[in-house]
């Protein structure tokens, strides 16, 4: 998935945070390295915002990459 995907833009415009979590997380799973960290961060922030059940797993993945701190 590319960040220009229509679904992602539509979710941003609609403020559909749960969908943003899903789209960014799915995109992160398809890449590696800094790009994965970027996408995981996006997913994690939106997940935290809505207390999404995926938030802890996303944070743990970022911590494992050395990109985030434990709560």
């Amino acid at each position, binding site marked *: 998935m590319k960040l220009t995907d229509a679904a992602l833009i539509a979710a941003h415009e609609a403020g559909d945070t749960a969908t943003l979590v899903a789209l960014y997380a799915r995109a992160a799973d398809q890449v590696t390295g800094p*790009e994965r*960290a970027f996408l*995981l961060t996006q997913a994690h*922030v939106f997940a*935290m*915002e809505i207390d999404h059940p995926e938030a802890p797993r996303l944070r743990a993945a*970022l911590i494992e990459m050395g990109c985030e701190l434990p709560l």
Partner: protein
Amino acid sequence: MTQSDLSLVRQNISAAKGLPNPHYTSEAVFAEERDALLASEWAGLAAAVDVPAPGDARPIDFVGIPLLLIRDKDGQVRVFHNICRHRGMILVSEPRRIEGVIRCPYHSWCYSTQGRLVSTPHVGGPGQNTAQGIERSELGLIEVRSHVWMGVVWINLSGDAAAFEDHHADLLARWAEFDQPLYHGGADSRFTLDVGCNWKLAVENYCESYHLPWVHPSLNTYSRLEDHYHIEARGRYSGQGTHVYRQLTGDDGQQFPDFAGLADKWDTAAEYIAAYPNVLLGVHRDHIFALLLIPKGPGRTEEQVHLFYPTEDTDPDLRARNAEQWKQVFEEDIFVVEGMQRGRHTPAFDGGRFSPAMDGPTHLFHDWVATRVQTHRNAPQAAE
């Protein structure tokens, strides 16, 4: 700014004059009093019921300062400056429920409802969410001291006032019998009045019973002027009490339940106190009200009124009648406070003189204002 002469205000009541006109009309004095009177004391900000559930957040502009009233995930009411520690962006623009964290809409720094900074996305570059020098433990939301009493969220913006329980120890002791669960009457027990006067005029009018027979003539039928007494606590609060409170009774004889365990005197007594600076409280055997004076400018004040009851389930019709009755009383006061506001635009007014017998509580408020403002003016000089 030419500073007003407050020495005459602090004279004995028989010789004192009221506050000079600029204290009601000047933008500069309004700003001065914001710091000297509203920020340095325990001021009323809102009702706790404004954020009824965990996560509820409400932005409030308090004398030009953007604040965020929130009930955190543990149910505690908190007040923060409504700004991100990154670029000072306003965090919450509309009342809403925070489901997880407070995410800044600019660069998405995230804060818990307790104010802890929990994420700083991309702060170290794309995908890197930490950076040297960005210590999250030092960058939480800036909390304002707050305390809930009588259903009111009180704040001390300066952060250096005595603890609320200490500052208002005698008031808490005076009304200790009412320190029991209060139930807000709901949507029909709150109303707001937009009044064209300086906030202090509303305090001054509320404090004294002198005006009752003229402005609230319906009270004359059962509550005469001589049934009232002054309440005076220098430097903290003043007001009036009555010995002849009469309960509201519905068409079918229904009344509100009483607060539990009150002394016999409350069978017919009621008390009305202005807790300086801006909270007007009234206690009765069967209900309590809080009126918050939210200053909107030198000549404009928002009056937010809330009524509370001893139990959760009270008669809705009776509640509506009670709210309407109080609304009528407070509306009856509007023409006098607005009239006094207009009167303060003539340089011929010299602050006025007080009735030594009847204006004690109002003079006490003026004395407090003058003392606090003078202390504030002296502070920078003392530091030099």
